[in-house]
């Protein structure tokens, strides 16, 4: 490989040797210690490869051996340079490209973070920015040890951090602190009362005196488990009651929706505004305006990425969607669909962590409103702790 490279740098020619004594020509070349290679027989003669400088020296030898030399090919760097001598722009371009590469390699292009689980990416990015490490910063200005130390102070959740600026990428490895286990600190005396009215279906008492049984009907705020416990010596003591009391509760929910609504309808067209970001430089790239009061902006950061490496060129795009107010009269079918969606959201998030045993839903139209009425039977834990004061 090295030999091929050296030959390419020096430049070589491929010559066809034909004539009366081609073998004698080989012997003459050997005697003069002229380097040649890849000598292959072809027809009456052969072809050989020679360095350019040697080619000029072998003319008298060819004459002596009565052979004719025909230059069939020129290869190597000297010939390429000669070919592009007129086109100086190529050379200038090549020099400029090298200069640009050398200049750009002095900056951090990308910050890669590895090993975060609980720490949010945005807070870490902000902390890194404050430490002076962000895409576009001059690489020599980054003191990795100082960044590590400052990052540890900024984010106390970090146990260990390593910052390495390799090539144009700042690689940050983080180990987070282990979370201490939750300690049971609740030791104050407390009762357990009912959160809602219902019928008890299951009781699991961990500590305290149980006052109800399965099948009992309970009212809101009724005492379910007492903190007062009688011990084996017939003495009373107070404990921190703990229990799960499951009961069937009945809930009703009404959701209303006006028939005539004012809605924001998105317009078909949208306007775009973008900035071309190069390292820390932001240049306006595309400008368009839209005169409207109602709009929503979406921001996109489009990074130029080649071979999984983010280049320091990105387009920061802001797409503005315009809206207009429109009065709508909801059809019953649409209203039902919207109300059912709202009800589903309520069931998922608002009603608590209970299990829905049964559900009755009714939709009606009244006084210019659509109303959905839902009645639920939900089985859930109704135990709520109530602290009690004990005076000695």
């Amino acid at each position, binding site marked *: 490989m090295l030999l091929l490279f050296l030959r390419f740098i020096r430049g070589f020619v491929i010559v066809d040797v034909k004539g009366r004594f081609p*073998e004698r020509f*080989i*012997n003459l070349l*050997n005697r003069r210690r002229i380097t040649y290679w890849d*000598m292959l*027989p072809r027809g009456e003669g052969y072809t050989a490869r020679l360095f350019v400088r040697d080619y000029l020296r072998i003319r008298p030898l060819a004459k002596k051996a009565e052979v004719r030399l025909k230059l069939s090919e020129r290869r190597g760097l000297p010939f390429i340079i000669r070919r592009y001598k007129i086109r100086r722009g190529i050379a200038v371009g090549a020099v400029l490209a090298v200069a640009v590469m050398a200049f750009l390699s002095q900056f951090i292009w990308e910050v890669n973070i590895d090993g975060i689980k609980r720490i949010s990416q945005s807070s870490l990015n902000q902390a890194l920015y404050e430490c002076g490490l962000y895409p576009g910063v001059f690489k020599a200005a980054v003191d990795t040890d100082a960044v590590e130390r400052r990052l540890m102070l900024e984010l106390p959740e970090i146990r260990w951090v390593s910052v390495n600026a390799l090539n144009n990428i700042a690689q940050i490895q983080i180990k987070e602190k282990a979370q201490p286990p939750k300690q049971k600190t609740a030791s104050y005396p407390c009762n357990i009362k009912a959160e809602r009215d219902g019928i008890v279906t299951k009781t699991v008492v961990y500590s305290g005196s149980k006052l109800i049984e399965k099948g009992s009907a309970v009212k809101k705020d009724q005492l379910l488990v007492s903190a007062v416990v009688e011990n084996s010596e017939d003495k009373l003591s107070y404990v921190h009651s703990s229990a799960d009391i499951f009961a069937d509760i009945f809930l009703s929910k009404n959701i209303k929706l006006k028939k005539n609504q004012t809605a924001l309808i998105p317009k078909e067209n949208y306007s775009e505004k973008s900035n071309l970001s190069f390292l820390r430089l932001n240049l306006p790239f595309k400008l368009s305006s839209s005169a409207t009061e109602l709009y929503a902006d979406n921001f996109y950061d489009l990074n130029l990425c080649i071979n999984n490496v983010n280049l320091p060129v990105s387009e920061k795009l802001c797409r503005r969607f315009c809206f207009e107010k429109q009065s709508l009269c909801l059809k019953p079918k649409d209203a039902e669909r919207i109300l059912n969606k709202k009800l589903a959201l309520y069931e998922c998030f608002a009603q608590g962590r209970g299990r829905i045993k049964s559900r009755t839903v009714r939709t009606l139209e009244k006084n210019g409103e659509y109303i959905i009425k839902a009645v639920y039977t939900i089985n859930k834990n109704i135990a709520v702790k109530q602290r009690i004061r004990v005076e000695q």
Partner: protein
Amino acid sequence: MRRIRTELPVEFSYNLPVVELTGNRRAYIEGSTGVLKYEKDVVRINTSSLVISLCGRGLRLKCISPTGVVVEGFISNVEFIE
């Protein structure tokens, strides 16, 4: 009494070339003084005492130095011409 051998090896005493064959693919001839014929099928190498003719197909001179030649290809016949 033990006799000390004073004879020189054959290649030195008669000034003979050394021919080394690697199967039928490669021949190394040491003591060559020049190439007499170079074709695809025949390569003739001159040495000080005889001419070595190699016949075959796809023969080529891999390497030539002032005292040695390496011929590569499918060698079918080696002939010594005095």
